[in-house]
């Protein structure tokens, strides 16, 4: 299946080059249209429950020197990607940026990595393939999984079968850049617990929370990478278990939850493939700050602005979120996950999580 995808991706890239070719031949100005990738062009897809791009498009046209350079770079990148797929190799986004330096044409070289990243996103959108299909990897190391899951990963050195508790160290199983190379063999997991911070993840592992409750602990590492979101969605879809998100009690963490659940702006073209609309938020909730009397920091101005803009954000237009955000604005405080340690190191695994998960109907 994955080889098919790659073949298809390659064909789609070459089709794009052919499109430029035809435009030249017809005496048209070579161009390509891509959806405008700004917040204002993100729409909520009612059917899929995720965020997708709206109807507005931007045209990359050879009409200007800038536009012509962009298209030239696109064609060079297309050639590079199609060669890479043909040779079944892969590279990182950063490598692409540096690689452009070796191209014979100065006009085709990238000025900075944002430019090359953006171009790859453009190509994803226009070709309908993903960058994983192009064999392009992001830089950041993937996040980890710890929990009762047995899987088989297609690695460059052959197939590996790994149990995510028994075959891994304290660090857990490293999620590969393309999680679609993984096959889930067996699982005793009851639910998925996505954790924002490394400190809390380690606490849960040390306290044996995964074993005790059959939890698949996915470490998000802040804003989750695509691979992390993709594997979360696949685990949810294929194992049919609930997904929960455990993060700090501040507006930025709510957005981490939103990107797991509904998708992000930069990858809205892949929301269907990355987002898990069924994901539930555990906490820290503003209500928890009050209920457990957690140590807090005051809200900064930017926190307040972020909360207020979340009140406007359709992703948070539910009674639950409105109530929580307004409560937080009211108390003017935020709390980290680790603040639970003020009640003792075991409080989170023995009291807080079981209570919350029960209340959410997960346990």
């Amino acid at each position, binding site marked *: 299946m994955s080889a098919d995808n790659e073949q298809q991706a390659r064909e789609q890239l*070459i089709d794009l*080059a*052919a499109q*430029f*070719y035809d*435009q*030249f*031949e*017809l*005496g*048209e*100005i*070579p161009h390509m249209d891509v959806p405008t990738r700004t917040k204002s062009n993100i729409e909520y897809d009612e059917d899929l429950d995720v965020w997708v791009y709206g109807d507005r498009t931007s045209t990359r046209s*050879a*009409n*200007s*020197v800038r536009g*012509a*350079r962009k*298209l*030239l770079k696109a*064609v*060079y990148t*297309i*050639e590079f990607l*199609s060669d890479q797929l043909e040779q079944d190799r892969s590279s990182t986004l950063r490598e692409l940026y540096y690689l452009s330096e070796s191209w014979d*044409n100065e*006009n*085709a070289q990238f000025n900075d990595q944002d430019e090359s990243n953006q171009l790859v996103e453009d190509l994803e959108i226009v070709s309908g393939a993903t960058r994983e299909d192009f064999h392009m990897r992001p830089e950041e190391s993937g996040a980890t999984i710890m929990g009762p899951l047995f899987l088989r990963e297609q690695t460059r050195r052959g197939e590996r079968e790994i149990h995510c508790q028994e075959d891994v160290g304290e660090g857990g199983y490293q999620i590969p850049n393309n999680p679609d190379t993984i096959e889930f063999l067996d699982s005793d997991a009851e639910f998925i617990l996505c954790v924002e911070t490394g400190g809390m993840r380690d606490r849960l592992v040390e306290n044996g929370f995964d074993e005790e409750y059959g939890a698949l602990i996915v470490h998000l590492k802040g804003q989750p990478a695509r691979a992390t979101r993709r594997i979360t969605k696949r685990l949810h879809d294929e194992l049919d278990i609930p997904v929960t998100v455990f993060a700090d009690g501040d507006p930025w963490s709510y957005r981490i939850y939103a990107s797991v659940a509904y998708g992000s702006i930069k990858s809205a073209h892949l929301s269907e493939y990355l987002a898990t609309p069924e994901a539930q938020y555990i906490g820290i909730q503003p209500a928890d700050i009050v209920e457990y009397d957690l140590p807090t920091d005051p809200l900064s101005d930017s926190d307040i602005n972020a909360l207020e803009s979340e009140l406007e954000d359709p992703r948070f237009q539910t009674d639950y979120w409105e109530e929580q955000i307004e409560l937080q604005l009211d108390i003017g405080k935020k709390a980290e996950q680790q603040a639970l340690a003020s009640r003792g190191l075991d409080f989170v695994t023995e009291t807080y999580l079981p209570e919350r998960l029960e209340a959410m109907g997960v346990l």
Partner: protein
Amino acid sequence: MTAFQSTLGEEEGIAEELAENQRAISIAEFFEKNKHMLGFDSGARGLVTAVKEAVDNALDAAEESGILPDIYVEIEESGDYYKLIVEDNGPGLTKDSLPKVFGKLLYGSRFHKREQSRGQQGIGISAAVLYSQLTSGKPAKITSRTQGSNEAQYFELIIDTDENEPEISVDRTTTWDRPHGTRIELEMEGNMRARQQLHDYIKHTAVVNPHARLELREPQAHFKFERATDQLPEETEEIRPHPHGVELGTVIKMLSATDSHSVSGFLQEEFTRVGKKTAESVIDEFRDRHYGREMAWTPPGPHESADVAAAVTEATVNKGATATEAFATAIADAVADSDRVAHNELVAIVDSSADAVEDEHGTTFGDTVRENAAEAAWAELAGLVGDDEDEDPADETDADPDDHSRLVTDLYELADGATSTRKDDEVVHAFAVRLAGKFEDSEDTRHRFTHKTLVEFVDRAAELTEEYDDVAFGDTARENVVDAIWSVMVTVPDDPPRVRDLSGDRDATSDLVDGMRATDIMAPPTRCLSPISDDLIEAGLKKEFEADFYAAATRDAEVSGGDPFIVEAGIAYGGDLEAEGSANVMRFANRVPLVYQRGACATTDVVKSIGWRNYGLDQPGGSGVPNGPVVIMIHVASTNVPFTSESKDAVANVPEIEDEIELAIREAARELKSYLNKRRSMQKRRKKQNVLGKILPEMATKVAEVTGRAEPDIDDAIARIMNNVLVERRLEENGDGQTVEVVVENHSSTNESLAVTDIVSAEPSNLSDGATVVEMDGEWFVKWDADVSSGDEAVLTYEVSTDAAFDIDVDGVEAEKLTVTDTETNQ
């Protein structure tokens, strides 16, 4: 002085003794001591000035006779001196006038003329002769041949500075190769340190005299400036002075010289732009100044006690009741019908009423009766009643406040209308009462006053009002009141004095001059001026400067000090002009280049004051002469260019002239701006074209590589991107021959007109409409003019044998906008 004073009285004849030492100095002697005033202050400059004077003279002489000037200037070293030779092809000078022209200062034909010419005072060339004889001690050698004469006349002369007369040492006939013209040879002390100025002078002269051929040979250089046109400058005509520019002394002189008897005739005869109507206007202005105006009062209303009819009836005796009544009623009606009545108008009314009643009733109304009637009626109108005439004490009490209020009401209305609405009614009323008092107290019961007297009245009344009512009555308010009253006052019908009376009356003449200045008079005619014209300025600039752009502007004529003038400006930009440093500013007055005293010249001041950045030029600090490859040329043509000194190096700062200079420069600069803008956008386009011209083929190559196809044709796409006009040849085999299509696609946003020439090596046939073919040396020139509107295309087709070669040439579209793709031919 003290020494003389101490001896005063003791010794007689001091004054006589002193007087013996006092004597008239000749003008030549004066200039001998004041050479700098004529531009001969140094050896370097003296040489340039001498060239300048000789060349100016030569140009004037040739042009006046309708000859295209051909002037040769030579400077050669001659021992310690320089020898200057100037030859022209002018009409030559007669044997009588020649010595005077060269050997007498202030001898010339142009000083008294209002007509544009280079020389004006008749000093120039004789000053050069004087300078030469002072420095080298050698006489001027002059050869002249008049048109049609067989021989030339040769003179050697010096100027007798005591007498300001030429002194001829050699006078003989000679032969000369020029058919007519004059040659002057002067030897003088000098040096060539001012070589640059000399070259500038000659070069600049060539720019503004494109009809002249100039040649300069000096020890280190030799230039020739050929003609750019065979068209002589339009001949100028002398004009009479314009009333706005003459001074009192001149008018007095003109008055004593004129043949006219009446002032009106004098004005019409002696001045330009004065006809009967204008003369009348001038005379009215004169009357206002000389005689003053008469105050016109509103006629009494029915509610007022002033009764014109009753007063007239009372004043008219022995004329019978009916006639008297008719007379009184006629006057009263006429008065009541008027808006305002002044004394002279009332007299006229009385006269016409008297005439009418005389006709009807057969009663004679003599002068005395009329005068009495007019006086009585005026007394009523002007509120003079009650003082002596009306003795009835019962009337007195009634009449007094009313009489006052007649004038007061009138003046109050005027003052109230003229002053700001914030002024209190009470104050204005009090002011009106005081002003009315001035009128009543005045000796002239006709209420005839000059503007000056009126101002005094108003000032006095205003001062009293300020003093007693403790309010401000400022200058503006006073002026407004004066204006309001003056405007209702009436010009008197008195006849102006005869010319012979006027000429002896300085004050009256002064009133006349003031009147002339105050009257609106059409600008003087411009046929006395000979501007270069914008076309010829451009031609002149093109001739002498290799630039990319030329613009010129000629303004309409304006007047300054009675002398009409025209300002012209020209600008050249780019090309081979020096890009470093500031612009080259060329100044001209009456076609003569101004070389010295650049900083003192009005033209330079104006150039510096213009914000050149607005016109796309670099101007450090936002003021001063702009930088860059620019030549700015300014020409002031006038019947009397106001120079700052006799040496005629700089135009004086006369506001009217400065304004016109600025407008002329700005007019030309606007063209420069649009040229520079266009050039910039073309540069951008070229840059874009250069970059895209590289990127797009690379992209096409890559696309072809990736898709595994042949390289695509990208010309159409490029033309469209560049908004270009694409000219493309398409060939199609057609039996033995081939069909050629030349397609013009206009991708630009404007309509384009192209001239396409396709040079074909074989004879073409079946040409499409609009195309013509001409054979030349075995090549066929297919000419085709195509008008293609924006977004459209046009096609030229013809048939030709398959072995034909082509070479296409397209005109009418900027190179930057044009993409020509000529397919490979068989050759």
